[in-house]
């Protein structure tokens, strides 16, 4: 992949080699925890169950999200498009 990955340093990152159909690919998932409000929309829209909700005592509603397994990602972009808080970047 030649595309430039532009994920700020304060984002958490997960990476994996993946296959999309028969093609080899690579995914980098960036996540901004400070901006995340734990709404769970990314968990709901992901067709591959890449995201999960976890407890976060420092957040007012007590939860944020994390990636369970980046290698399941198919780069459909649904989580990035539907996160209302600009917290996800898929490359």
């Amino acid at each position, binding site marked *: 992949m030649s595309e430039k990955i*532009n994920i700020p340093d304060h984002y958490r990152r997960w990476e994996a080699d993946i296959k999309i159909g028969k093609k080899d690919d690579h995914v980098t998932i960036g996540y901004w925890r400070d901006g995340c409000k734990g709404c769970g929309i990314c968990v709901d829209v992901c067709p591959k169950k890449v995201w999960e909700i976890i407890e976060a005592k420092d957040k007012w509603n007590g939860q944020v999200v994390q990636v369970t397994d980046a290698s399941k990602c198919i780069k459909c972009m649904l989580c*990035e498009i539907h996160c209302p*808080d600009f917290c996800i970047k898929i490359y």
Partner: protein
Amino acid sequence: MAFEYEKYLRMDKIPHLWCPGCGIGVVLKAMLRAVENMGWNKDDVAFVSGIGCTSRAPGYIDCNTLHTTHGRALAFATGIKLARPAKHVVIFSGDGDATAIGGNHFIHACRRNINMTLVVVNNNTYGMTGGQHSPTTPIGYKTSTTVYGNIDPTFDICMLARGAGASYVARATVNKGKQLEKYITKGFEHNGFSVIVATANCHTQFGRKNKMGDPISARKWIADREIPLEKAREMKAEELKDRVITGEFITEEPEKTRWDNYNHPVHEYTEAYQTIRDKAQEKK
């Protein structure tokens, strides 16, 4: 590839004030991607809004922005467009802002067919002020002002826009971010008044009173009622009760031969206004 929203945002104002999972953020993102699709220079765009949760959006956008008074965004926007016809003017309104207090401005902006784009975030309520019923609250639903269920029939904002003379009209929901982006882009491209209705969740105010107080169930309530226009055309009116019809209601070339378009659209307003300017200057 990830979209760089930072390019269009005032990052010092983010995180925004909207509730976790609020639909407005999803619509704002679709709109920013549409701006990118157009390749517009940020200095050539003006975002105008009234008052409400939805109307907070321009405060987060790093372009020319104007946060005006409740219901009057279209009047301010019309002023900007007439003074600077070459600039792109985009209005971001709630259902209350656009169709209740601002209903009069709404129909007249449609009637003038002025080359601006209005994005209406329809969350079926007045989110900001405590979830009162709006002209789009469906019959039977509870709000803080309809505690036994709403009895007021609703406006269909797309039909209203069409009837009033808007020349591009489309609707998509927050469950389909890509479709929203496509319609807003087409609205931007269109020379005339374009209205894009984004059906959105306000689970905090509207949802909570109707057994869908979290974003996931409120979004599902919308998804379950969603129906594409092509399918709706084959259905009976009674089957479409309470449904959210999505699609393009009027496109670039309105079906000019249809009898109900006999009155539509005559001309684009800034172009017509220029002919008046020219005439006035000839006289001198």
